């Protein structure tokens, strides 16, 4: 790409008009003739053997379709990484809310009555509800030792550093579960019969994940399964793996009844039964010199995976690789484990393990700084990774990186130094509102880890019509982040066309190639690059065939498309991902180039604590990052602002209350996300350093903003309160308890 005619411009969102007028059609807006509604009967018990299923009296049960594990035509397991999670419990249950039985009926009100009237009687078995009990094997509930996956990353020889270390600093850090809370609940509609196969429409991030799962569930050939993404009202990871479950359920009911079946979860079911962010526990042990040089880091990182393996192994992977941050430390050991508990499986949520391990690191480094007697800023400046240095996995950073400059910029924009000094003075003088300012410095890798993209081998197509219109064919979904818009920008820029001439096709596995899942900050950088090369291929086809000159206008392009199609038929160009030769990854040793590129960032949070109510508020927020070239400034800033808001929720508001493995506050009334009254001004600044591996120089962006807010906020709260809080969500009750304890001790 030579110039930014469209790339870098705030063109209007492709589906913006439909969204602001209410015409955009989400899954619950679709109705099919003869459609039934489906519902899921779930386990009331965290672990046990199903003794009996009792259908209560007073309902016309002969009108209902009932599906149990016995009705499954293929394999009763959700195909993901391992095959341990059943679609429907068969004899045993391993968490509350586990699906046991499915019901369908034309009347959704009667269906709801019926769902409540089915009683699943379970003979209970001992269950495990915490990371500690799982690690301690209080009860072995999964495999031989409750461990889904473990990693060991070794750099240098960390055992050699402790004896000579000037300081050794230890700390323990915890993060809680977090609900994705997309405003559109999970939902699907399925049509299924032995002749035509299975078609599913639904709210989802990854149509080909659902496709793969349904192939196994029905034991049908791939071309007998079709998955179509409808307009999706938010995902944030919460619609990465779970749609495979709900799609399977609707399809099983449709298969049994021969009629279309719609399943839409209500909010309480969606919150209690579907995935959340993995809770985590991290232990740090750090050796540092008197001058503040990090010489050794030993990190133990554990996440709670819930009852089945699902995606925990890959969440753990990303959390592990990000655990040592953007610092140059010669000796690092990271040991990590994902363990089983009898909670619903935890799953993908924006950041995918990294927000957890980065929270621990960025809190811990403030402690290290205090121990050495340096400011948090100075400690980081002395250890920032530089171009040519290596990360914990031994990846040499080949691209330019300048964390120092990002930090300086973020401090200018936030007036950090003046505020830090002023707040210290005012807090000491007994002000009733305590204030603090803090920051976090971090990186986030884009795309699948290690060789992941190589194995995915994503494909993107560009198709031209005889009218000279171009359609981007990809399974990457628009979930609010702007896929439709940026793909059209990239293709139109490459082809020299107007933005309006290019559109992005609806993801439909019957029509688009598998461009991989819409996850891992990969849509812009990895898939966007494939859009660019597919568009280039289209142009070269036309030019190579003599249909189009070196330079052309849109009328000439139209004519070329028409002539080519008349002579040769459909005009499509496909591009398949090929991993650059300089990316090397050793999956066994967990060494090498973990990601093709990293985004780099410094976030600064200013907080206030009311000394009467102990409420913490974020008063100001500055987010400075380098994400390569920005494709669309409004969408990109929107990604950052939205991620920061979720990060503020993660830190201060979003408290999942567990009772024996079940979320007790599965309502928006008592699970609190930030409102328009809670969010501070979020000031977003991009430094742009083009990355050759991304379209127009772009890198990944989506997950990055989830990483920084929580540690920056807790670092600020430490200045405000003089208390080191190391667990989130940090609720007012915890602040009150700690401050009252401090007061008594004083």
């Amino acid at each position: 790409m030579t110039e930014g005619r469209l790339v870098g411009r705030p063109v209007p969102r492709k589906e913006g008009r439909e969204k602001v007028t209410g015409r955009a059609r989400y899954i619950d807006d679709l109705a099919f003739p003869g459609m039934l509604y489906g519902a899921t009967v779930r386990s009331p018990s965290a672990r046990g053997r199903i003794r009996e299923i009792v259908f209560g009296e007073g309902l016309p049960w002969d009108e209902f379709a009932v599906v149990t594990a016995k009705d499954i035509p293929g394999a009763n397991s959700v195909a993901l990484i391992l095959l341990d999670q059943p679609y429907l419990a068969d004899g045993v249950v391993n968490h509350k809310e586990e699906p046991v039985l499915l019901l369908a009926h034309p009347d959704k009100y009667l269906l709801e009555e019926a769902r409540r009237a089915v009683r699943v009687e379970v003979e209970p078995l001992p269950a495990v509800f915490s990371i500690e009990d799982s690690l301690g094997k209080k009860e072995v509930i999964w495999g031989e030792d409750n461990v889904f996956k473990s990693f060991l990353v070794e750099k240098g020889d960390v055992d050699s550093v402790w004896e000579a270390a000037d300081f050794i600093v230890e700390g323990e850090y915890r993060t809680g579960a977090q609900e994705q809370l997309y405003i559109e609940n999970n939902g699907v509609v399925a049509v299924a019969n032995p002749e035509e196969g299975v078609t599913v429409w639904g709210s989802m991030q990854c149509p080909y994940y659902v496709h793969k799962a349904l192939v196994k569930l029905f034991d049908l050939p791939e071309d007998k399964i079709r998955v179509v993404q409808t307009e999706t009202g938010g995902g944030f990871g919460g619609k990465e793996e779970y749609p495979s479950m709900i799609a399977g359920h609707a399809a099983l009911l449709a298969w049994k009844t021969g009629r279309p079946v719609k399943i839409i979860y209500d909010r309480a079911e969606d919150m209690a039964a579907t995935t959340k962010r993995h809770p985590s526990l991290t232990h740090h042990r750090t050796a540092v010199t008197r001058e503040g040089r990090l010489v050794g880091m030993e990190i133990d990182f554990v996440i709670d995976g819930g009852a089945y393996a699902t995606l925990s192994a890959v969440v753990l992977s990303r959390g592990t690789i990000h655990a040592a941050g953007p610092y140059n430390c010669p000796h690092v050991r990271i040991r990590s484990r994902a363990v089983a508990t009898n909670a619903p499986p935890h799953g993908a949520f924006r950041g995918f393990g990294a927000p957890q391990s980065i929270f621990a690191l960025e809190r811990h480094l403030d402690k290290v700084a205090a121990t050495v007697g340096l400011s948090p800023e100075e400690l980081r400046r002395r250890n920032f990774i530089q171009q040519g240095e290596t990360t914990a996995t031994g990846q040499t950073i080949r691209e330019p990186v300048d964390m120092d400059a990002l930090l300086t910029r973020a401090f200018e924009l936030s007036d950090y130094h003046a505020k830090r000094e002023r707040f210290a003075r005012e807090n000491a003088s007994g002000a009733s509102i305590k204030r603090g300012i803090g920051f976090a410095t971090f990186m986030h890798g884009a795309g699948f880890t290690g060789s992941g993209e190589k194995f995915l081998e994503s494909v993107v197509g560009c198709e031209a019509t005889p009218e000279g219109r171009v359609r981007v064919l990809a399974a990457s979904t628009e979930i609010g982040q702007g896929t439709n818009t940026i793909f059209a920008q990239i293709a139109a820029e490459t082809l020299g066309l107007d933005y309006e001439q290019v559109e992005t096709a609806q993801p439909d596995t019957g029509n688009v190639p598998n461009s991989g899942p819409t996850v891992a900050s990969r849509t812009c950088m990895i898939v966007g690059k494939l859009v660019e090369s597919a568009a280039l291929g289209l142009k070269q086809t036309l030019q190579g065939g003599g249909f189009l000159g070196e330079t052309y206008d849109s009328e000439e392009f139209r004519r070329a498309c028409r002539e080519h199609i008349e002579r040769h038929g459909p005009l499509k160009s496909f591009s398949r991902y090929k991993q650059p030769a300089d990316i090397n990854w050793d999956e066994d040793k967990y060494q090498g180039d973990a990601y093709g590129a990293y985004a780099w960032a410094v976030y600064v949070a200013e907080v206030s604590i009311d000394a009467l109510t102990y409420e913490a508020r974020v008063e100001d927020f500055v987010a400075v990052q380098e994400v390569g070239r920005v494709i669309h400034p409004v969408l990109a800033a929107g990604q950052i602002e939205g991620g920061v808001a979720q990060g503020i929720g993660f830190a201060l508001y979003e408290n999942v209350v567990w009772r024996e493995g079940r979320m007790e506050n599965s309502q928006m009334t008592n699970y609190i996300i930030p409102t328009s009254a809670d969010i501070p001004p979020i000031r977003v600044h991009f430094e742009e350093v083009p990355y050759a591996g991304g379209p127009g120089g772009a890198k990944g962006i989506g997950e990055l903003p989830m990483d920084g807010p929580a540690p920056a906020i807790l670092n600020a709260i430490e200045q405000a309160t003089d208390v080191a809080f190391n667990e989130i969500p940090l609720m007012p009750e915890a602040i009150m308890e700690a401050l009252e304890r401090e007061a008594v001790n004083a």
Partner: protein
Amino acid sequence: MSTDARAVTGKVSVACEVNGEAVKLDAYPFARLLDVLREELRLTGTKEGCGEGECGACSVLLDGELVNSCLVPVAQVEGAEITTIEGVAGGERLHAVQEAFIECGGAQCGICTPGMVLAAVNLLARTPAPTEAQIRDGLAGNLCRCTGYMKIFESVVRACRK
């Protein structure tokens, strides 16, 4: 959360005006206005997010008041004037708030957008030039999980200038 509308026996006829048109609704009196709009009138722009009046995705204007239609039993709307998102634009001409939401990035996934647009329209009808605090307050009953609200605030400010 679905409530069993049939717990009260018999449907009732309710006359009201929806987006400027007189309609006669035939529904159980405790049916949620949200369901009647979506299922009887097929006005699916009004969304259900929580079903308990917390998220505002189902916001409509009822006699000029912003309400959560999931909390309004249809028996209450006899004689009322209702505006849903489908009634905000004048034909193909978008309302200034809608234009501003497109220009400023006020809509991402779009599921809160109908309710948020109505909340903004309602705010500007009462307060044509709101301060930032008034904007925050005026939209506080509508949750958005995508934007972090900054672009929504910008959209409202932009709409004022139109």
